[in-house]
């Protein structure tokens, strides 16, 4: 795609590219070498710092923490998909008394940081006498946030379908329910699948916020480990971080695969062409593909 920006390099460009390449390698190697040097200098490679990972009990606890992370992720993912559907259908409703409140709720959940939502549930609710486990605070906060983001994704998917689909549905005598359930949603979900999975990666990453409200997930355990004998702070960050990165990479890989498959599927080609940038927003940021026709849907949302 980008290769059109430049010509096939001539002799001078080849030389220049080589010099730039070598310079890049030198800068990167320099940075890595400096970090490794500091690690060695401050004794991060010494056996005592890694000693703790030789205990099988530690690994069992890491597995348990991993289980907690996955438990929060799995339930939050399922619930946010369900909530996303509900909110999307509410927003697409023809009745203003359904559409307006649902829109307000969706926008509200998207505007409040997930962490503040979690804190409200965990620290705030006890004030009015409701005690909530950290697990439920994490799950409900993730559900509310990702549900409202997914609602926007579903809605954008439905709205990007050609009008003829809906009209044809009514023409063969289906009711509103049937048109949505049998005609619009299946196509929208198929077209939006890569974005939906990408949002699940965001959900996975956000489970790490549970650390701050004392949910005993992976990162919380990393903090716990780092106060153990030998104070292996960086070491536990690397081990635990590795687990997170691998999990997220797997999910991202699935998203990438689905995206490539979607792009090559002839059925969806036409559809994807006028799919606008689906604004989906991470707690973090998004993958907003600044696609052709970006902003087609942004006018109706608060942006994002």
């Amino acid at each position, binding site marked *: *795609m980008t290769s059109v920006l430049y010509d096939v390099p001539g002799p001078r460009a080849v030389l220049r590219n080589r010099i730039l390449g070598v310079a890049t390698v030198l800068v990167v190697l320099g940075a890595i070498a400096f970090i490794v040097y500091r690690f060695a*200098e401050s004794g991060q490679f010494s056996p005592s710092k890694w000693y703790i990972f030789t205990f099988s009990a530690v690994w069992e606890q890491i597995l348990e923490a991993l289980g907690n992370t996955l438990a929060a992720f799995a339930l939050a993912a399922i619930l946010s998909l369900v909530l996303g559907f509900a909110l999307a259908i509410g927003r697409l409703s023809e009745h203003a008394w359904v559409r307006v409140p649902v829109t307000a709720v969706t926008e509200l959940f998207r505007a409040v940081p997930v962490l*503040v939502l979690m804190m409200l549930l965990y620290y*705030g609710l006890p*004030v009015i006498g409701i005690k909530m486990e950290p697990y439920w605070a994490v799950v409900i906060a993730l559900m509310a946030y990702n549900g409202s983001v997914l609602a926007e994704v579903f809605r954008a998917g439905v709205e990007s379908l050609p009008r003829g689909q809906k009209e044809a549905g009514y023409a063969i005598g289906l009711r509103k329910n049937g048109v949505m359930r049998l005609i619009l949603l299946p196509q929208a979900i198929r077209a939006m699948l890569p974005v939906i999975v990408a949002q699940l990666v965001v959900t996975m990453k956000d489970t790490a916020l549970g650390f701050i409200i004392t949910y005993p997930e992976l990162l919380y355990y990393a903090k716990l480990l780092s106060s153990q004998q030998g104070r292996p702070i960086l070491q536990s960050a690397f081990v635990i*971080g590795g687990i997170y990165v691998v999990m997220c990479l797997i999910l*991202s890989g699935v998203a990438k695969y689905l995206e490539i498959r979607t792009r090559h599927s002839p059925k969806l080609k036409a559809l994807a062409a006028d799919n606008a940038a689906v604004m989906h927003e991470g707690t*973090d*940021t998004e993958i907003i593909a600044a696609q052709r026709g970006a*902003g087609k849907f942004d006018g109706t949302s608060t942006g994002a």
Partner: protein
Amino acid sequence: MFDVIFGNLDLWGEAIANTLLVFFGGAIIALVLGVVVGAMRVSSVPIARAVGTVYVGLVRNTPLTLVFFFFVFGYPQLGLPKLDNLVLGILAIGIYTATYVAEVIRAGINTVPVGQAEAARAIGLPFGQVMTLVVLPQAFRSVVPPMMSVFIALLKNTTVAAGFAIGELAALRATIYDSHERPGNPMEVLLWVAVVFVVLVLLMSWLQNRLENRWRIAR
């Protein structure tokens, strides 16, 4: 209900200042680093492309909380000059957000139709002018709305700093709760924090819509 604000006015001022500091500091780092990485990802040097891809792929699949963990807890272990938690937090959020900025810029350059660069080359412009005169001005327009989304997310992400002893808005709950003389309970504090964020986010969304309408691409 308003006691929690007017009784702690000093704390609120400090917290909002810190939040904005993290936001703008992070935004500047993210923009500079993101532009560099984005340029690397579309450059004609294969090694630079590879480095950019690895950086983006790695950092984007790391939870922000973990990036903070590395910087705030990990950095002091290396025996380097001491840095304030606030500075480390800004670095962490900047390096994390830079990957999203890089992606937005790359996507923006890719939206410019191929014919534009080809035409520019056909009339004999060198690579530098192809970019500065033809491709980038067009890419800029389609980059603005998603870039604003990145900054909205950055603003919300500043709350993560609260978990790492950086006294910004989300950390107010603990500060007010721990000092017993101060008015306000956790619920009130957090609700007001949420209100502040909703207002700021709506403000930025409004700005985003305005910029978008102004620079809408007529193609």
